């Protein structure tokens, strides 16, 4: 690969905490290598801000290899930036060219309040999982693993849904701030597997109820969530969730 360095202008959302008004600040950054990751570019800027006696920009990040789901920047109007199927931490500066202006915001959704700068609170996702995103099996209850046969296509489809990293990009990308892709990924994973069958009805009903309670919007099938999902979770999961939900609603016997 050809390496190059570039000078950029960053427009970054700064907000002291949940209770205060935020605003954009502009920062010129220079000498950025095309080999850096997007977050390493932020490291360079933060190091400079610290040396200048200013407050660095707060952002969530941890594994920096695209799997923990912590990073969450809205870059030039797109969740996780311009590359398809890529988290912010895996986005590299090759995606930009010298002289670019890059706008960086936190996830924008009422259910994800801003904690500070680019950091948001995604506790709502944990609470949705609490509502039913599991198989109720205590430790020690299990039978031999190979007693449960799972057709390969079903296992593969369940895995593809289970690959969700819970980053919240689907919500951030959605004009309705809907969490349907997130919820559908977990409901689908378990609905596709024999282990998930006994609780499939309550799972769909309870997770949707919690999603509504958290204030996420409804799904209008725009597909922005699928387009921006760094793990490329398919929209067909939402169709499956709708089927599960409707079927549960018609046949639930309590």
């Amino acid at each position, binding site marked *: 690969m050809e390496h190059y360095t570039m000078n950029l202008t960053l427009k970054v959302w700064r907000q002291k905490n949940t209770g205060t008004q935020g605003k954009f600040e502009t920062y010129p950054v220079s000498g950025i290598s095309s080999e850096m990751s997007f977050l390493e570019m932020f490291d360079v800027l933060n190091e400079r801000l610290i040396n200048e006696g200013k407050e660095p920009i707060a952002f969530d990040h941890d594994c920096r290899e695209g799997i923990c789901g912590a990073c969450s920047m809205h870059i030039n109007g797109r969740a996780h930036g311009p590359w398809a199927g890529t988290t912010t931490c895996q986005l590299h500066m090759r995606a930009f060219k010298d002289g670019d202006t890059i706008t960086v915001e936190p996830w924008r959704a009422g259910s994800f309040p801003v904690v500070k700068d680019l950091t948001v609170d995604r506790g709502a996702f944990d609470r949705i999982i609490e509502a039913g995103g599991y198989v109720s099996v205590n430790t020690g209850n299990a039978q031999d693993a*190979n007693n449960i046969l799972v057709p390969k296509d079903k296992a593969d489809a369940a895995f593809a849904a289970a690959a969700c990293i819970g980053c919240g990009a689907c919500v951030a990308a959605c004009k309705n701030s809907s969490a349907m892709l997130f919820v559908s990924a977990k409901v689908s*994973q378990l609905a596709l597997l024999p282990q998930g069958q006994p609780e499939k009805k309550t799972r769909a009903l309870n997770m949707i109820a919690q999603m509504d309670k958290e204030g996420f919007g409804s799904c209008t099938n725009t597909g922005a969530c699928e387009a921006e999902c760094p793990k490329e979770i398919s929209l067909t999961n939402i169709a499956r969730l709708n089927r599960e939900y409707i079927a549960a609603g018609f046949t639930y016997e309590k």
Partner: protein
Amino acid sequence: MLNSKIPAGSLDKKWEDYKGHCKLVNPANKRNMEVIIVGTGLAGASAAASLGELGYKVKAFCFQDSPRRAHSIAAQGGINAAKNYQNDGDSVFRLFYDTVKGGDYRAREANVHRLAEVSGNIIDQCVAQGVPFAREYGGLLSNRSFGATQVQRTFYAAGQTGQQLLLGAYSALERQVALGNVTMYNRHEMLDVVVIDGKARGIIARNLITGQLERHFGHAVLLCSGGYGNVFYLSTNAMGSNVTAAWKATRKGAFFGNPCFTQIHPTCIPVSGDHQSKLTLMSESLRNDGRIWVPKKQNDTRKPSDIPEDERDYYLERRYPAFGNLVPRDVASRAAKERCDAGYGVGSSKQAVYLDFAFNMDRYGRIEASKRQLSNPTPEEIRKLGKEVVAEKYGNLFDMYAKITGENPYEVPMRIYPAVHYTMGGLWVDYELMTSVTGLYALGEANFSDHGANRLGASALMQGLADGYFVIPYTLGNYLADDIKTKPISLDHPAFVEAEKNVQSTIDKLMNIKGTKSVDHFHKKLGKIMWDKCGMARNEQGLKEAITEIQALRKEFWSDVRIPGEANEFNPELEKAGRVADFLELGELMCVDALHRRESCGGHFREESQTDEGEALRDDNNFSYVAAWEYKGESQFELHKEALEFVECKPTQRSYK
């Protein structure tokens, strides 16, 4: 002194006997007993879920915004279990034996045997939870090989096994949160252990959003806080991975076991520049289908595709014909370093070797063509079919490589180099996973117990889940059974007040330095000292220099670090500063330990102790023990030894030739 509490009896009966005779806590009493768990990775989440299910009142803490983000999530390749589903000769004994041998005879036999015994239960449990492991067309579970074994016992979910296992444990944990058995404290960091009358009785935690310090009582405290590889600054660990919980415990009297045993993983993406913030692993499973080579000519600048077959040196296959590319990690890492140091490295930095999939991609393409009964397939057809097979096995890893390097690994060989990955050392624990502080436990990577001087691939996930799902539920009960009369201790107890005061004064001290250099500045300097002098190869002179340099750096840190912002708000720089302060003490202890261990074993390679062929040379007469270090004040550590006895696995010079 050091009582490891290994049950009597033959090795294969110890755990069964223990379970049959350990004390139990009745369900009504469990509801009155509080357990604190620090960390929510595989060990912490599985322990929290299992103890919650049993009825204990659990409080779980993690510094991330959700327990699902713990760094276990990033484990790629797989998890071992002695299921023998492949009928290839596997057994509990073989898994046990491979693990003790792989650890270069520096692990405790009884613990490893227990690990092998429960390995099968882990797979059963995870499948029951709905973990989508890879499967065969008949619907059965699929297995693959990993380093240093000659059987296929590794279960996997593409290159995201850790993610799937952690999400399984996380969902079990969240279920207990919903049921009210577990209270979850996200964005909280443990900053001290509270010890009352010689027993761990709680912690001081900082709410990372508000900066407030909180006191929490527990009848017992479990540290499941992972490893300390980030002492090297550059590692495959997450940015937040740290030693703070374990180090605070060390300062409160818990011994630190084998701190110098660090695993340098052979297949990571090489460093690309000074801006580098972390290193990314390429799973060991890739060595099943990737062949490692360098040019036979020094300083060869040709493109890999221009180097003909007979001018390539497949050095692992050459040196270790029996295991080839699947030698254990320590061996593979040293071999890569040896080639690069000798001038055969590739890429712009010359600190890299090739990991090449062309050969096996072609092989798979031919198999697929044959399955489809294509006669005379064209090279393009073979290529396309082979690529599909490789993409299904390792697609996410190849994508990750392409994003980071900008190169397409389906077309050109990957460039890889060793990087710090895992720490076998950790808090010393006995058979029951209790540290040398009564009532304080350490599980998973945070303890030292099962991997000796080198961990085999696909064993970390196994150990974390074994400790959390299947060991601690028994051993904790054995301790708490004698504690049922203890009422919750008031948070106004002098020990809580004192511990909080100390934490507060450390924070105040850090904030008031108002120096000129960032936390990262010091962390990078520490990392460089550690990598250069306590990394893949160590010698007496280097280690002595490192100790002096770390002491000087620590002094500089405490007089010149700059932390912007306030203590009573969300302040990531302050969090980092506290963690780096602890790394600056741990780093010194690692060098002290490495200096005292004048033998090579596993990942600890002392240049003074090697065979004529450059392999690690153990000194069983003098060093067949666990080094457990007691903190006695700044730069003062006292060595305690736990002798290792090998009944079933007689130590021999490890050979993978």
